[in-house]
């Protein structure tokens, strides 16, 4: 029941803050803040009290075990259940959602002044949807939440976004975001349905349950097509390079809270989807597909990094760096080794912190300078109090400096992938150099060089200071001591690895029968 509350609380909180609009601007903000803090505290309590260090699984790879489970029949006609389950991976990501949700509420405290109640309704609905995605273990329910978070995100960008220059309006960006994700989502729906119906033809029962479908046997060709259906949906969201068109616009035009959510959490739903569904459901097809996926990841690493170097808009720059980082995530996921998979989790968490930090900082710059164009910045180091110092920390984290969580993540991904695909790793390391370049470009152009104005701008107030300090602490904490994160997700990642690597080779069950 706890799991249901995790979804219901932001949902109800959203409705409350919408209605609280009539009591002034403060009420919705406080309600939203309390809601998100509550979610965060609940996940932390779960983390403390639950046991996620499951014993390593033996040969019976199907014995999936959840730390918590909640199940009730929903649409019996098709065997659809409301089936929520929690394991280490989802717990970490939900905690992340709670934390970044809190930050998103905090960082819009002064930025959003119009229609405050409705803004928080949308924000909290997104977060409810994301938590749902991380908990749902029934494919129909998963799709339900997957699509549900799109609509409020659309409103967030379309109504509270910033219109960029050159005809890049916020509505255009919002529509682009929606169409990309929705159309790829429909492909996933078709894949889900095809999976369910092929299971139906074999067994005669309908089921959308993850555990049941995990056992369904598919012909090689069908599995490949279905895997691609899932992959495309996740690849759009991650994003993988040819499908990334929506991301720079959406990030740049969204309000700060929207960018924080997008970069911090929404991109992670895609990686989660791959880890939870695409790989385990179609291990063989995924294995066949892995070289392609890793190549796409490499392309993403370089494409994102190179384009980031050429951006004028600070938020677009950060958006492109996200593409680059997600390239590493994709490489790590499809390498399938436990080390790389754990690295993926650390990298996701680390990227969420550093990207959120950078987006919050650019939001604060915007509040002070009313521009996001780096040509109008420069020489800000002495004029902004402690803001540039924080920027340096997050920029350094983003380029993967040892001591930050990003370093741990990237290192583990590359280290774990090396035995599987050494060439990819060797080339991928070049991306780290580019990361240093774009990070330094960002620092240089914004904070150094000739000053564009005089006088001292407002320093951070206690709210901004606390947010950033919290983020810095977490980046350093997981950079220096990532073990709790690794312990929590070890079991789930080991399971993915086992499913992926023990996938019976195409020759048939003869070779793998002995395990």
């Amino acid at each position: 029941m706890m799991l249901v509350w995790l979804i219901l609380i932001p949902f109800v909180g959203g409705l409350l803050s919408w209605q609280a609009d009539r009591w002034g601007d403060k009420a919705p903000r406080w309600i939203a803040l309390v809601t998100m803090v509550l979610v965060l505290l609940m996940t932390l309590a779960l983390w403390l009290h639950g046991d996620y260090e499951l014993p390593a699984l033996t040969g019976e790879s199907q014995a999936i075990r959840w730390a918590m489970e909640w199940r009730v029949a929903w649409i019996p006609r098709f065997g659809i259940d409301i089936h929520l389950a929690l394991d280490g991976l989802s717990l970490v990501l939900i905690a992340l959602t709670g934390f970044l949700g809190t930050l998103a509420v905090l960082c819009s405290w002064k930025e959003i002044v119009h229609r405050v109640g409705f803004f928080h309704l949308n924000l909290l609905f997104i977060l409810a949807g994301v938590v749902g995605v991380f908990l749902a273990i029934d494919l129909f329910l998963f799709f339900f939440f997957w699509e549900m978070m799109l609509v409020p995100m659309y409103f967030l960008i379309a109504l509270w976004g910033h219109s960029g220059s050159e005809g890049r309006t916020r509505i255009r960006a919002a529509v682009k975001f929606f169409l990309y994700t929705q159309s790829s989502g429909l492909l996933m729906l078709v894949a889900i349905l095809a999976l369910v119906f092929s299971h139906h033809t074999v067994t005669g029962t309908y089921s959308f349950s993850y555990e049941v479908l995990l056992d369904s046997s598919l012909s090689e060709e069908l599995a490949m097509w279905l895997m691609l259906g899932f992959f495309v949906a996740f690849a759009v969201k991650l994003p993988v390079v040819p499908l990334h068109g929506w991301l720079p616009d959406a990030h740049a035009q969204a309000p700060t809270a929207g960018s924080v959510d997008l970069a911090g959490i929404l991109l992670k739903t895609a990686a989660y989807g791959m880890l939870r569904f695409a790989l385990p459901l179609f291990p063989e097809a995924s294995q066949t597909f892995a070289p392609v996926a890793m190549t796409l990841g490499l392309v993403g690493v370089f494409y994102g990094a190179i384009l980031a170097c050429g951006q004028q808009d600070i938020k677009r720059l950060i958006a492109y760096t996200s593409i680059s980082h997600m390239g590493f995530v994709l490489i790590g996921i499809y390498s399938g080794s436990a080390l790389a998979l754990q690295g993926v989790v650390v990298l996701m968490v680390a990227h969420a912190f550093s990207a959120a930090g950078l987006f919050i900082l650019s939001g604060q710059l915007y509040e002070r300078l009313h521009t996001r164009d780096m040509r109008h910045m420069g020489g800000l180091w002495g004029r902004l109090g402690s803001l540039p110092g924080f920027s340096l920390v997050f920029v350094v984290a983003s380029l993967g400096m040892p001591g930050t969580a990003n370093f741990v993540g990237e290192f583990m991904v590359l280290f774990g992938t090396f035995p599987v695909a050494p060439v990819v790793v060797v080339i991928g390391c070049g991306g780290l150099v580019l990361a240093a370049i774009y990070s330094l470009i960002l620092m240089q152009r914004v904070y150094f060089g000739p000053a564009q104005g005089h006088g001292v701008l407002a320093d951070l107030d206690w709210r901004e200071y606390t947010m950033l300090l919290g983020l810095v602490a977490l980046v350093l904490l997981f950079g220096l001591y990532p073990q709790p994160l690794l312990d929590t997700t070890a079991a789930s990642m080991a399971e993915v690895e086992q499913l992926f690597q023990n996938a019976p080779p195409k020759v048939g069950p003869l070779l793998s029968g002995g395990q």
Partner: protein
Amino acid sequence: MLKLSYLVAFVPIILVCATAVTVMLGIAWRRQHAVTAIVTVVGLNLALVTAWLVGQAAIITTPLLVFDDLTLFASVLILTATLACATFCHVYLEGYPGAKEEFYLLMLCAAAGGLVLVASRHLATLFLGLELLSMPLYGMLAYTFRDRRSLESGIKYLVLSAAATAFLLFGMALLYAQTGRLDLSGLISGLTASTGVWGLAGAGLMLVGLGFKLSIVPFHLWTPDVYEGGPGPAATFLATASKVAVFVVVLRLMLAAPVFQERWLHDVLTTLALLTMLVGNLLALLQSNLKRLLGYSSIAHFGYLLVALVVGTGLAVETACLYLVTYMITTLGAFGVVTLLSSPYTGEDASALHHYRGLFWRRPYLAAVLTVCLLSLAGIPFTAGFIGKFYIIALGVDAQRWWLVGGIILGSVVGLYYYLRVLVTLYLVEPGMRRRDATNDWGLRAGGLVVIGLALLVLLMGVYPSPVIEWAEAMVIAVL
């Protein structure tokens, strides 16, 4: 010949007709808008209850009509739609300077026609029902005839509908020439033996005639103009009750008659379905009038529904019924909001998109209702529309009709684009726009309550669809 059980089965139709007569006599005696509306609503409610009670009994087959689960299902939908329209009418016609009461009379007649149509098992009743459904619609669409657009839409519908009727009659004649029978069971057995050229031609022509009413693509040209011009309640009735009734009869024909499974007719249907969903969605992209946009979107939705007819096996009936329900309540809600905004009547309806700019900040609940309906039309989770779309895609995937599945996906994506355009308009603020607005007490009026109820129903069906699914699944269709 006339058995008592027959009479019981006829009760809903008789009740609707009796209400129509009562309304007519009432008008002759003394014009009173409120009383007329109340009589209409009471009559329709009685018919709804009796239809439900009759439906619980076993299947009743008379020589001309059949009362099975499908009939019950369609009757309930038609009566519900008519009821909703009646409540919208009451608000809408308040401001109409001319005679108000005849509108109810026309609507009751049309509803009776719809009830006959969905129960027909003989070409005579099919034709009678269809005409009884269509004729009053001419009057309803041209009801506010001092408004040029309304008159235009009425006449346009009259002319095109007459043409469609001609096709239909010709098709029936050819079928009669081939088989010598007019009752559907006779026709079917006649055609099973040998289809023949005339049989095929007849079936094709009937399809053209019915396709006009459903606005399947090459026959869709009237739809946007008629939707735009007709007064709100009439357009609502046309989009819901009328289309549902015609679709149900087509469904019955397709399921029963083997001629429709004929290879080339089948291919034609597949092409039509693809064309309808794509053309409808693409044309809707360019509209700046909400009623026209809903018109095109209804074309697209019937394109999706055709998938159920093309597949015709397995989940087909269930899918069609479920989709009809979701389509109907959603469309009722969307048109209801348009009608409420144009109420009371003061000339042309408030259907241009700029009337809706910033609606959310003026009328939050009304805008929320429209939002829910548009999301449902777009097939977003948490709304009934998603369940409908889920079913249609499931049907396509199950039957492995990948072209159709591709068409549905493409169509939905295009569809999203224009629904989103309307949606975001509702929430924008643009000072200094000319405003048409609902009356301040809209939420307390019957029409307002109905609209809110419909939105809640859309959400409820999106979250808890099991009851409707069970209803659709258990549907027993009489063998004709």
